[in-house]
């Protein structure tokens, strides 16, 4: 399985600002995913990021709010823009394994005040 790291591990931000979350993988992967986990809730897919193409966003998530970059096969960023308290969540990146499973990073806990 891949080893995935995320930065920052947590942050407290003021409303109206933006935060960029980094996801680094120790091996080259084609598909990377970004999820949101609101307090006490399950995981919801934000978007799928393939290297060399635009990210594919799920219903309810838009590129202006959650721009994603995927510059190479080991790295991706998710930006949470113009934040509000409702954006307070854990944001997780994951990568696709060889048999359709996904491996997750440790998450970024975001609090918006």
């Amino acid at each position, binding site marked *: 399985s891949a080893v995935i790291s995320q930065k920052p591990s947590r942050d407290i931000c003021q409303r109206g600002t933006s935060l960029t979350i980094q996801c680094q993988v120790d091996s080259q992967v084609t598909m990377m995913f970004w999820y949101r986990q609101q307090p006490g809730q*399950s995981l919801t897919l934000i978007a799928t990021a393939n290297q060399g193409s635009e990210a594919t966003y799920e219903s309810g998530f838009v590129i202006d709010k959650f721009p994603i970059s995927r510059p190479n096969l080991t790295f991706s960023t998710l930006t949470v823009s113009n934040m509000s308290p409702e954006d307070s969540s*854990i944001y997780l990146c994951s990568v696709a394994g060889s*048999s359709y499973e996904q491996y*997750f990073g*440790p998450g970024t806990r975001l609090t918006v005040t």
Partner: protein
Amino acid sequence: AQTVTQSQPEMSVQEAETVTLSCTYDTSESNYYLFWYKQPPSRQMILVIRQEAYKQQNATENRFSVNFQKAAKSFSLKISDSQLGDTAMYFCAFMNPLYGGATNKLIFGTGTLLAVQP
């Protein structure tokens, strides 16, 4: 649309005993994958076990095994010889691979919080 249901928000088990977590799903597809993930209080999601729908044999991984009932659309997780380190939130997840598509989306249930008591 595919959905995943976990009807047990919380469960408790004594150390060394066996516990079964329930999961049902709804799909019209015949080819799909099912997973159980564990999220300890440290929040790192860990893959516990996976099952391919076209395989009749139930998957096992050490103390973890599944009871996959395709006709009933049921996918329960059995944890044998429970250990304190098994305390975590457990999520059931479904994935229908889109051949040639751009995404292999995981759909998660709402989770079951398992507490292993000493």
